[in-house]
């Protein structure tokens, strides 16, 4: 390889605050919108929104959308396609879980493993038709939506199965236990320590990446700005965990989602397979001619989607503490909306996992905030619809302006 000194100044755009904002406008834009929406409801609800208990609730309520939107991002990025079946798959998995655990008294772990296996089978079924027979994903998953909803109702004979054992409900309502509970503190010390550890890891990664960049003589963020950035983010992380510690600590489901987001973010941005997904979504023909096995990639993406739908199904069933034939209605639409609000392109090739998470949180905060204010669910739905349109219109308009 060439010596790093061969890198000219023009290799990368000059780093300035202005450029950083310009290049990441969409993502930061949505993040800013999220903060603004939160501030608005914080004031409008007279501080209830960000009460530690409500914050924990917000996460628990929206866990399923967060999980689903991760997988949906991959579907949308790879081909501009969506998966309409995820809501029904959630319900179906709930039904299987209910039948196995409530009716047949099977141990939870075994039931969960069987559910994950069934989830993978569902993914193989849908992925096969989409990737190898090339039936449009819209049609295949529309069929799946009907098929698995029907199977759910058949399996439950239209009834709701409950209750599940207590341990099962912990998945969606439990918290990581405080190791220092014996000390009698007013806050959860474990939670604070975890926050501290995470922020230290974050700072370490940032420093290492800066070091690597300097080794290559790349221009990096000016030192004061860099310090400001990592301190700000470290403070936000610690504040967040401190806030959680005032209630019951870290919800188990938050830990699961955190790990998923981390894995999928790294996967999509820093691995070969992840990059192939973006290339394929941008131009399938070019990707194919560059050696990407597009059929296989598409196949795996739909298996992954079904796998995450299974996780979401288990989490939701646990939250409901029941297997209901009506579970998971419109989940697919929430997840799709989250991706688009978070900046994914309906044509494929553009979108991020973090963006989808932010999109899901925007909707979650809207829901929660409006509920606290006593806005009816009918109005909530209308408002969410308008938010989706506004976010995407904003995206389209800003793009058409910046053309060339």
């Amino acid at each position, binding site marked *: 390889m060439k010596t790093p000194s061969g890198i000219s100044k023009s290799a990368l755009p000059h780093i300035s605050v202005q450029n950083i904002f310009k290049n990441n406008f969409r993502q930061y834009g949505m993040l800013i919108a999220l903060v603004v929406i939160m501030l608005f409801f914080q004031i409008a609800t007279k501080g209830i929104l960000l009460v530690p208990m409500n914050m924990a609730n917000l996460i628990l309520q929206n866990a399923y959308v967060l999980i689903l939107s991760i997988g949906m991002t991959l579907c949308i990025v790879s081909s501009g396609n969506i998966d309409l079946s995820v809501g029904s798959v959630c319900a179906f998995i709930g039904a299987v879980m209910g039948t196995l655990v409530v009716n047949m008294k099977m141990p939870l772990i075994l039931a969960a493993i069987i559910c994950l296996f069934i989830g993978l089978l569902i993914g193989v079924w849908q992925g096969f038709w989409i990737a190898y027979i090339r039936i449009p994903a819209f049609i295949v998953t529309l069929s799946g939506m009907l098929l698995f909803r029907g199977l759910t109702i058949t399996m439950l004979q239209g009834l709701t199965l409950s209750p599940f054992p207590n341990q099962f409900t912990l998945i969606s309502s439990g918290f990581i236990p405080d190791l220092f509970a014996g000390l009698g503190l007013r806050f959860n010390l474990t939670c604070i320590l975890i926050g501290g550890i995470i922020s230290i890891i974050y700072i370490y990664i940032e420093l290492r990446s800066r070091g690597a960049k300097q080794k290559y003589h790349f221009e990096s963020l000016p030192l004061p700005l860099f310090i400001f950035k990592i301190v700000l983010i470290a403070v936000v992380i610690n504040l967040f965990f401190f806030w959680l510690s005032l209630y019951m600590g870290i919800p188990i489901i938050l830990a699961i989602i955190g790990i998923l987001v981390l894995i999928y973010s790294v996967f999509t941005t820093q691995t*070969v397979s992840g990059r192939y997904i973006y290339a394929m979504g941008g*131009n399938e023909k*070019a990707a194919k001619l*560059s050696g990407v096995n597009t059929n296989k990639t598409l196949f795996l993406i739909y298996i992954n989607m079904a796998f995450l739908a299974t996780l979401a199904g288990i989490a939701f069933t646990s939250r409901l503490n029941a297997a209901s034939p009506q579970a998971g209605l419109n989940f697919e639409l929430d997840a799709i909306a989250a991706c688009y609000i978070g900046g994914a392109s309906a044509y494929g090739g553009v979108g991020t996992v973090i963006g989808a998470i932010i999109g899901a949180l925007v909707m979650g905060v809207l829901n929660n905030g409006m509920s606290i204010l006593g806005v009816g669910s009918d109005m909530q739905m209308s408002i969410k619809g308008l938010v989706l349109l506004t976010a995407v219109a904003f995206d389209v308009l800003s793009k058409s302006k910046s053309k060339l």
Partner: protein
Amino acid sequence: MDNLILEMKRITKTFPGVKALNEVNLRVKKGEIHALVGENGAGKSTLMNVLSGIYPYGTYSGEIIFEGNECAFKEIKDSERAGIAIIHQELALIPYLSIAENIFLGNEQSKKHFISWTQTHIKAAQLLEKVGLHENTYTCIKDIGVGKQQLVEIAKALAKDVKLLILDEPTAALNEDDSDNLLKLLLELKRDGITCILISHKLSEVSRVADHITILRDGMTIETLEKGNAAICEDRIIKGMVGRELVDRFPKHTSQLGEIAFEVKNWTVYHPDIENKLVVDHINLKVHKGEIVGISGLMGSGRTELAMSLFGKAYGRSISGTMLKDGKEITLQTIRQAIDHGLAYVTEDRKSAGLVLTQDIKSNISLANLPALRDRLLIDANKEVCIAEEYRQKLGVKCPSILQKTGNLSGGNQQKVVLSKWIFTAPDVLILDEPTRGIDVGAKYEIYEIIHKLADDGKCIIMISSELPEILGVCDRIYVMNQGKIVGELSQNEASQESIMKCIMQSDRR
């Protein structure tokens, strides 16, 4: 010349970076068949697009006088109203509608706001009679062959009371019999007083039916030949088409040939959709190390299909034949295998198949060889930047930064990015399909230099090009392809534009 139906005066049309037409003049007499010939890219189709209003009035300069009136067509409807109909190379028929529906598309036979289907089918039948097509008017377009579809297109034009019919390469996709029928029909229409402009590569046809032949070259009118008592000799037309100075358009280069490093024997490929249609027919070719081998031929001669089928079976069905690399037989089932075996294929259409336009230069360059950037599980982003920057400098891609989206680059720079992508895979055999299409002259020169540099590094280069001067200026040896077969192999000394054209013409006649 009086009695002109059409006169185009000093038409100039520029695209960003390219002057496609430069003060072109065209005079067409009423009731004649006027042929327009020239190499690919000479400006024939552009001229016709100007005439039919596809490039609206105001985007070009010059005058169009049709039937004595100056015209300012803003869209294709305007020219149709005036009585001009254009039939493009790619037919504009809707496959799932019936013949009658297609004929009257946009020109529906209606009575008081409702379409009269009886009227539609009666009139369609009359038109089919006229063009000599014996098909039910209810038949779906997709169920009839290309030759018949061509006739439907003509019927569609006739339905609009056409005065001037323009046919762009009407026989390119037709077999002998269909072509013959079509030409006869044109002669009949001429008797009915319809004027016709015929664009064609097949000079035998042109010299047979045309009354006048206008030759375009590099966006300029060269001459108009008139058919006297004797037919116009093909050699005369070829001379007009290609008679161009070749000075300094190509960098000087002497290739150092090594041993034979890439060889293909008996390569045969069938069309992926059409049963039993041979696309590549028992082709043999070999390339030495450091050699630039050209494949010349007209559009549709099977060059791209050959290249893609070699590249890990990216095209075609029932592929047979052997491929030898460095004397050893290799079988490539997938594109990935082809890349791993040191093959690279630069597509002819960089926008739709070469680049991911929504992504930046860096990601496009690394795409075909991402695994090489992997450090354990993850991609080393810094290394990627270094690689991209290295190629940006080496190939001279002009851009503000490597984070620039490739969709915003000029054609020449886009092509350099595509080349970078493939050079980064460290190939031994590079197949370049129309590497300079749609690129301005300066960038072409730079691309040629890159190609020479690659040959100097001992790589085998196969270059497909429709531009004869380019093939002659760059290649050490030239294969001439026609109708899926190799119909000639010419060394640099033997090759000339005339000799290549002759190889093609002779094989056509056979």
